[in-house]
């Protein structure tokens, strides 16, 4: 009883947020049932005919689908490798002593986040096209041979990943920077007294201080390995590299939306959701064993 007397406000606080999630997330979720139906938009979601797993069977019989899944995973793995970049960025920014320079850089680093991928795609072509791109023309003028950033499949993957880092690092950095400010100053002062070098301070104080944030973000990123945004691959893809550039989101766009096959689009989405959830839970369990900490 004493427990309740103390804890009842928590339920009050949770009430509105839960209403939100149930109303605006769970109610429309009923719509995933379209993945099991021969969806007729005029009959509606519930009156359309039930076809069980037929839609899934159809998807799994499309060779394109497997290519899209493979590419999605591959690109996401590469992106995962760039996970430390925002962390390093935050650490570097934190070490800057000149305040105005620090703030200036913080602002500048965040800029790419505002440029939509559509624009970035156009810029990428102007800069990186093998024969007419500015970077390659510059290389040519130096007598070097051009680099097929966008035309060679492996180079394209690197370009894609690099563009992702450019777009995201500043944004991610802010998050870590905010987490950094919460570290107790006294720890630094104590280390100072002990004569610790900069690097040791970072290793023993700063990093552990933001450890929870790092773990949570890492787990979440793993959970999203089956997912991939639409804009980045769509803007950067071109016809030379479709073998590696066709991902699930662009595939769903072509097959599902443009061809008006909603059941297929929903079914693929459901597939991604289930896979993502499994990945997340797996990552969570492993993290608990290793770090004694997870999201939950």
């Amino acid at each position, binding site marked *: 009883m004493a427990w309740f007397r103390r804890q009842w406000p928590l339920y009050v606080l949770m009430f509105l947020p839960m209403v939100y999630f*149930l109303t605006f997330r769970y109610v429309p979720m009923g719509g995933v049932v379209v993945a099991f139906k021969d969806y007729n938009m*005029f009959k509606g979601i519930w*009156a359309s005919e039930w076809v069980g797993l037929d839609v899934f069977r159809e998807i799994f019989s499309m060779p394109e689908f497997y290519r899209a899944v493979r590419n999605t995973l591959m690109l996401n793995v590469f992106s995962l490798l760039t996970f430390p970049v925002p962390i390093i960025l935050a650490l570097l920014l934190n070490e800057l002593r000149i305040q105005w320079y620090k703030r200036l850089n913080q602002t500048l680093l965040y800029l790419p986040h505002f440029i939509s991928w559509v624009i970035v795609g156009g810029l990428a072509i102007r800069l990186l096209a093998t024969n007419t791109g500015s970077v390659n023309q510059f290389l040519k003028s130096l007598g070097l041979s051009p680099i097929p950033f966008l035309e060679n499949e492996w180079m394209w993957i690197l370009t894609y990943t690099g563009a992702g880092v450019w777009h995201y690092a500043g944004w991610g950095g802010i998050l870590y920077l905010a987490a950094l400010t919460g570290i107790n100053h006294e720890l630094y002062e104590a280390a100072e007294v002990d004569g610790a070098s900069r690097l040791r301070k970072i290793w023993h104080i700063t990093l552990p201080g933001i450890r929870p944030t790092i773990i949570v973000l890492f787990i979440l990123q793993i959970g999203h390995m089956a997912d991939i945004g639409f804009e980045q691959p769509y803007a950067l893809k071109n016809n030379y590299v479709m073998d590696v550039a066709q991902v699930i989101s662009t595939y769903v766009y072509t097959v599902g939306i*443009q061809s008006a096959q909603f059941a297929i689009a929903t079914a693929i989405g459901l597939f991604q959701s289930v896979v993502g959830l499994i990945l997340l839970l797996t990552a969570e369990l492993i993290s608990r064993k290793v770090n004694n900490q997870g999201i939950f």
Partner: protein
Amino acid sequence: MRTKFRASWRSVLVLVMAAAVALSGCGKGGSGGNADGDSGSAGTGAGSNAGADGGQAGSGQPKGERIKLRVELFDRNNTPPGEPPITENFMAKYIQEHFGDPNNIDVEFVTVPRAEEVDKLNVLMASDSAPDIIFTYSKPTVQNYVKNGGLTDLGPLIDEYGPNLKKVLGPSLPYGVFEGKQYAIPALRVIQAQTTTFIRKDWLDKLGLPLPQTTGEFVNALRAFKEKDPGNTGGKVISYGHIDVFHLMPLVNSFWIWDEIDDRELYAVPRWLQPGSKEGYRLLNTMYNEGLIDPDFAVTSEYSQTFAQQVVTGIAGAGTPNTNEPVYNGYYANLQANNPDAVLEVIDPFTTADGRRPKPMYEPIGAYIMVPASSKYAVAAVKYLDWMADPKNIMVLQNGLEGVSYELSEDGLPVLLDTPEATNWLYNYYDYCIILNGKYVSAEDMNKNIAANAFDLRYKDFTIKSIQAGINDGYVIPRVDIPVEAELKYAKILEDFEKEMLAKIVTAKTDQFDKVYDGLVKEYLAKGGQAVMDEKFEAYDEFYK
């Protein structure tokens, strides 16, 4: 105490979940009684009445009761500053005064952003809130609606209320027949020309070369451009630009062995398998390996801006863009602003062995205009479209008012005046005059229509020649009214794959060409190309038996 609380918490959760599921269940059925002021459409709750044969349309509107007719209108976000919104401008008012009021109808325009027209339309249809008159350029969307019973059969209505429509849209109406019924009214495309080749005439003059009349002469001219660089581009010259599957068809078509292709095969066989096609692509491959083509062509997914830039900066020697694109896209003008001596000339060089110049043309249709099955005002809708097809109204909707925004030339063709009204009234006239795609002045004389569409007087000659070249020996794929399931499913995938194919085939090393070509064609067939071809043959036989 604790256990009791936990248990009750769990049951609350279960109850809430159940309620949520139940709520979503009411989702569709309940929306019939929606109260958010979405007037006009969707009187009956849900399209569970799949009987889309317009029976209900017979119950028109009782005379005397004012009805609201909702018409879709594309929003291109290009209203000139200071002008009223597109739902209340000159056009809207004219329509209300001359159609709405005399017929006791309130015409209301429902705007849909042009770029997302299909997505937005789908959402409106799925939620029973679509306007009474809808349209789209996307055929799969139309077929989807037909398949799911979402459209009104307009056939009987046109017979009764649409005499003007029948006259003006004669050539296009048959394309709106699906499953034997007139489910859509396709707009009439006045200009069927698709693509037209042009070349830098001033460069030819410098080199003392005549305008190319055959494929061989054309390629030689391109080679000369590259070797001698008459444009002084410093080696950056792109002799032949705008490389993509669609725009290369005239070139490829000139290699087809037309005697071996009958209508049936023209309809069903994919372009890569037509007899002779491979040689056409081989020529392109040769041209690429000789450096006559833009080396980065496959990196751009949207060619129009890149090609425009290449023309304007004076490095493009020739190309086959959309007919008259240099004029309506403004890059011919920009080229001449940079270089007043530059001249683009229309040519039609791709010739078959027997001197013909076959090339694809558009079917004589524009957007598909439809009336949803859930609409109560199909009669009013057809009346509206019929009113629009009256030549008098066409003239106003396309040109404004005589003496104010246009005047008639000696040949009786409307010529736009340089007045503010001309700009402010007509910047999006084609979105109101939806039954026509292109300017239309005569039902009989094609040349008058062509001339009427040469609106930029500086380039009148270029435009007219472009159109004429674009329809010279032009062909249209035979029409088969039976839906091809495989096509609905695979069309988009195959279309995207064809772009990949082109990139790889054209850039292959010469000795690898055959291997690459054959390999990719096999892949194409495996991805659904075979299924589509087989079904198309069946459909053709079924339709024409």
